[in-house]
């Protein structure tokens, strides 16, 4: 029977061969399209005598960037200017994500609170923030900064060493001291020690059933070790105080109005979405789980940590990832309020060099990189928190 069938079916009717043929066809089409688009673009650019290639990255940028984590001046290259922009994007995304997680979790849990006022307030916050476009929120926070706060000469000075004015928030920082390096080092060691301690305590509890007060001990190590190092160096207390000099404050550290407005806008907006994600996650765990946990004598902290969260996180983590990506991508709205993020610097670069295609390609690459690494990390975390069935 089989032999007859294979004889009868000609190869062009063989589904397997046809499948391969179609797929090869699609790949060829795609390659042709890609080749066509690239070569046509190059041809057109050449016809208009517009420069191509990435050699501009090594040329002097000749423009200044408002704030930078690394040293930069207009004598540096376009490449360095773009790195400055990328670092600024990273800075605002990193702090934005941290604060969003904190605020979002708080609001999400508040909404489930049995206290009527707390849950209503959380609901109000979520509904209002979710439904106002983030760009408007950015404009609003930026305007609050420059319209409400006084000029540097009349800056608000609520506590010693802290100034609020329309140039930003300027605050005193500890003067540079050799102790800081060692304090940072000791913090690292303390974190590592706490990690190992936790593993050890878990193992011990699993084998002997003996409980170890891991939270308090770790907190003690993490806070205590750097303080001990600080005391060892004679407790250096000198502060770098900001002082009004000429047009602006010298000394101390400054958070610019652009940065604060961007951070506030992004955090308040995204936190509303995160709150809903958290609420959904917690509500997905059936009440019976809580009741069962209580009935075997777990305390309410343990109920949350050992029963509710491990199950809720499975639901929370995947949509949380996309909210983090949203925040990173929305940070490109910085352009509207003058924060020098990557898009802002790249836009200036595009305009000064005239090479939009390269510039846009760089923008896409950088955001893709940020997003892919965020989601790679979150996927790893997701795998970890997935329910492990025994």
């Amino acid at each position, binding site marked *: 029977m089989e032999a007859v069938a294979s004889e009868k079916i000609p190869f062009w009717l063989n589904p397997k061969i046809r499948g391969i043929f*179609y797929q090869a*066809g*699609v790949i060829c*089409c795609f390659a*042709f*399209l890609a080749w*066509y*688009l690239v070569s*046509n673009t190059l041809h*057109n*650019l050449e*016809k*208009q*005598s*517009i*420069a191509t290639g990435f050699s501009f990255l090594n040329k002097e940028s*000749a*423009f*200044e*960037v*408002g*704030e930078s984590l690394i040293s930069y*001046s*207009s*004598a540096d290259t376009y490449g360095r200017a773009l790195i400055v922009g990328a670092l600024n994007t990273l800075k605002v995304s990193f702090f934005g994500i941290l604060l969003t997680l904190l605020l979002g979790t708080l609001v999400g849990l508040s909404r489930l609170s049995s206290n009527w006022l707390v849950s209503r307030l959380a609901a109000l916050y979520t509904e209002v923030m979710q439904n106002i476009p983030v760009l408007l929120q950015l*404009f609003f926070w*930026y*305007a609050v*900064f*420059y*319209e409400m706060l006084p*000029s540097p000469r009349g800056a608000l000075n609520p506590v010693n060493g802290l100034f609020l004015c*329309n*140039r930003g928030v300027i605050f005193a920082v500890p003067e540079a001291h050799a102790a800081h390096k060692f304090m940072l080092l000791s913090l690292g060691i303390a974190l590592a020690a706490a990690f190992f301690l936790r593993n050890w305590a878990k193992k011990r509890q699993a084998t002997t059933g003996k409980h170890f007060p891991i939270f308090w001990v770790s907190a003690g190590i993490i806070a205590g070790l750097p303080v001990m190092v600080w005391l060892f160096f004679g407790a250096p207390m000198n502060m770098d105080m900001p002082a009004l*000099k*000429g*047009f*602006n404050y*010298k000394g101390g550290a400054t958070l610019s*109005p*652009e940065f604060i407005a961007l951070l506030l806008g992004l955090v308040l907006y995204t936190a509303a979405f995160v709150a809903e994600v958290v609420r959904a996650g917690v509500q997905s765990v059936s009440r019976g789980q809580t009741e069962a946990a209580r009935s075997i004598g777990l305390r309410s902290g343990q109920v949350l940590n050992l029963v509710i969260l491990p199950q809720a996180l499975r639901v929370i983590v995947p949509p949380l990832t996309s909210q983090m990506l949203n925040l990173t991508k929305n940070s490109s709205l910085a*352009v*509207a*309020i*003058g924060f*020098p993020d990557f898009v*802002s610097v790249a*836009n*200036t670069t*595009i*305009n*000064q*060099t*005239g*090479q*939009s295609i390269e510039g846009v390609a760089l923008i896409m690459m950088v955001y893709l990189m940020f997003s892919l690494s965020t989601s790679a990390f979150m996927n790893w975390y997701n795998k970890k928190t997935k329910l492990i069935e025994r």
Partner: protein
Amino acid sequence: MKSLKICIVIAAVLAFAGVSLAGTLDDVRAKGFIQAGVNGGVFGFSMPNDKGLWEGLDVDTARAIAAAVFGDAGKVKFMPLTAVQRLPALQSKEIDVLCRNTTQTLTRETTNGLNFVAVNYYDGQGFLVPKKLGVNSAKQLDGATVCVLPGTTTELNAADFFRGSGLQWKPVVIENTAELNKAFFAGRCDCLTSDVSQLAAQRSVAPNPGDYIILPEVISKEPLAPVVRHGDDQWFDIVNFTVMALIEAEELGITSKNVDKMLKSELPQIKRFLGVTPGLGKALGLDDKWAYNIIKQVGNYGEIFERSVGPNTKLGLERGLNGLWTNGGLMYAAPFR
């Protein structure tokens, strides 16, 4: 098989779409209007008035091109563009000509693939500061926070100026002119830097214009001119000689009011200019009445200047460098012959 067919069709469409053989003049004639890129809001150069009609020196320059091409100054559509958008919009053929206080530079002429025609406003960069700051020279701006538009030569000149003078500064770069003005007037920056004409325009929209002064230093040369794409010489000639015609008419004493009378003039250069003696329009690929139409409908350069930015407007700018060469200015048209 279906997907293959679709691919082939798409490829074929793209292949033909990519090739456009017609020049800009033919394209413009085919669609019946000129798409001009302008500034979204610089008083005196291009800004919609309270009736929604565009007004200003750059806008009128674009109208003059429409008058030259179509014999109708109304056949132009304005597309407001930010400093960052303007060059890509021209490169990608979204607009036919850019009349948006754009400075002629070597890079823009070469690697950006653009051509600047005759200058329609000679400008220079300055600083606008609040009076209460107590500053009377740009050299006193050490440590200042400076509001500046991105994607401009202004941004580069400011960096050069502060670097060259060994002064510290902090730029605040906002793309939207209105947003930038708001931030400056609210005190986000100590000073605003831009071309002097634009500073005058920005001051005129301040809550209290009298509270601000323009510092005496002019730190750059800013020849502002309309821009077209590389590689279309005919269109370049038309736009170039439209600007020159505005200047030439002023020099010849032809205004929108006396242009009809001037048709009867016996002076050979006026007869050539207005097309009474034919030839010049045809050489450009236009009607011989092209210059007549420009002057009749838009006016000469002096008229445009006076009604847009001159001493009797809110800007109150003197002719200065923008006077005719015969009056000690830089406005000088090539001979019309």
